């Protein structure tokens, strides 16, 4: 699918077809996309995930995971959960990874990179090696790096024609249920499945005004939004009809009937 279509179609899907499994190759493609996303802090070894699949993972594990997700109905409906995590021990491989990048000439001496530079400057400097600094900053940067990868995973799911959403759960319970060591933190849980609602899910979600988010040259001076660019993105499918679509109320009632939910 065109990138702009993928961005435009993505929205949080909250109703899934529980009866329809997700092809294993699609799950792999989602994970492959996340793996290739930027890891600008060279956090390659911290971004890990545990996948829970209905009918494959033991049912008691899946059930406990759904409960740790506050038993939200969509967590129950979705056949696949990708539990994204941060493995803080992955930072210990930073030096090896940097030397690898030097060796393949992604990092070059032209910009001052050398094995000695890694050892004398990078490794002892918290801005470049989070383990050298305070734990809070290390976790903060790790969360940012995790967000980069998970964002790609969301888009990849849409590219595969699937619905997806991120859920927050009880982290300590999730860790226990999936047997994670204590240096691993679950970040967010991505649910994946075929949507039971229409893929539009009622329309593209509202966002704050473009010009209140983006500035030019200085904080507070709006970056002017060109309406012709907006029109072009509309025609390319990135900017879509905003929620609510006129038939959304009926759709929600129909979904409630399907799943026996209150309206």
């Amino acid at each position, binding site marked *: 699918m065109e990138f702009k279509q993928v961005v435009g179609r993505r929205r949080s899907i909250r109703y899934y077809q*529980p009866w329809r499994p997700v092809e294993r190759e699609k799950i792999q493609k989602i994970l492959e996309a996340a793996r290739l996303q930027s890891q600008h802090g060279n956090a390659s070894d911290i971004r890990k995930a545990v996948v829970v699949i209905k009918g494959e993972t033991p049912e008691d594990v899946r059930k406990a995971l759904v409960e740790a997700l506050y*038993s939200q*109905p969509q967590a*129950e409906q979705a056949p696949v959960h990708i539990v994204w995590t941060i493995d803080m021990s992955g930072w210990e491989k930073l030096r090896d990874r940097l030397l690898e990048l030097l060796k393949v000439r992604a990092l070059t001496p032209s910009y001052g990179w050398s094995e000695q530079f890694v050892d004398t400057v990078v490794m002892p400097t918290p801005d470049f090696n989070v383990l050298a600094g305070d734990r809070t900053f290390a976790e903060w940067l790790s969360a940012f790096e995790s967000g980069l990868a998970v964002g790609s995973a969301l888009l990849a799911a849409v590219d595969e024609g699937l619905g997806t959403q991120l859920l927050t759960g009880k982290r300590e319970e999730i860790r226990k249920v999936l047997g994670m060591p204590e240096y691993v933190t679950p970040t967010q849980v991505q649910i994946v499945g075929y949507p039971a609602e229409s893929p539009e899910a009622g329309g593209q979600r509202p966002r704050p005004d473009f010009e209140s988010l983006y500035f030019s040259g200085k904080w507070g001076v709006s970056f002017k939004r060109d309406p012709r660019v907006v029109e072009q993105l509309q025609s390319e499918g990135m900017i879509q009809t905003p929620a609510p679509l006129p038939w959304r*109320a009926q759709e929600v009632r129909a979904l*409630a*009937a*399907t*799943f*026996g*939910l*209150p*309206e």
Partner: protein
Amino acid sequence: MTDAAETTATAFYDFETVQRYAAGLEELPEQERAQRLGLLQEFSAMVGRTPDEMVDELFDKATHKYRKRGFYAGRIREFSTKAPGTWAEQNFRGNVIRSFFIANGYRIPLDKPPWM
């Protein structure tokens, strides 16, 4: 009898929690609204509490924890199944009560449809 029933209904609608629930029903036809409010009144009588009392005792605002969730989940299930009909018809009765709690800010566990 008509007068008395109306007075009772009016008093029932006066509860703050009922008003909150009713506000979300405005888009429904008059008959459907009345049916749902009737079911709520029936449930309220069954558990012997006013609507405000039900909401009050469900959740402890001081500790931010549910207090009588199991109790209400059980009574809702009882309320559902005491009427005849299909699972969907019975479940609808229970969901009216769940919706009442939702409108007032709280969730009662759901029952999954038999096909799921």
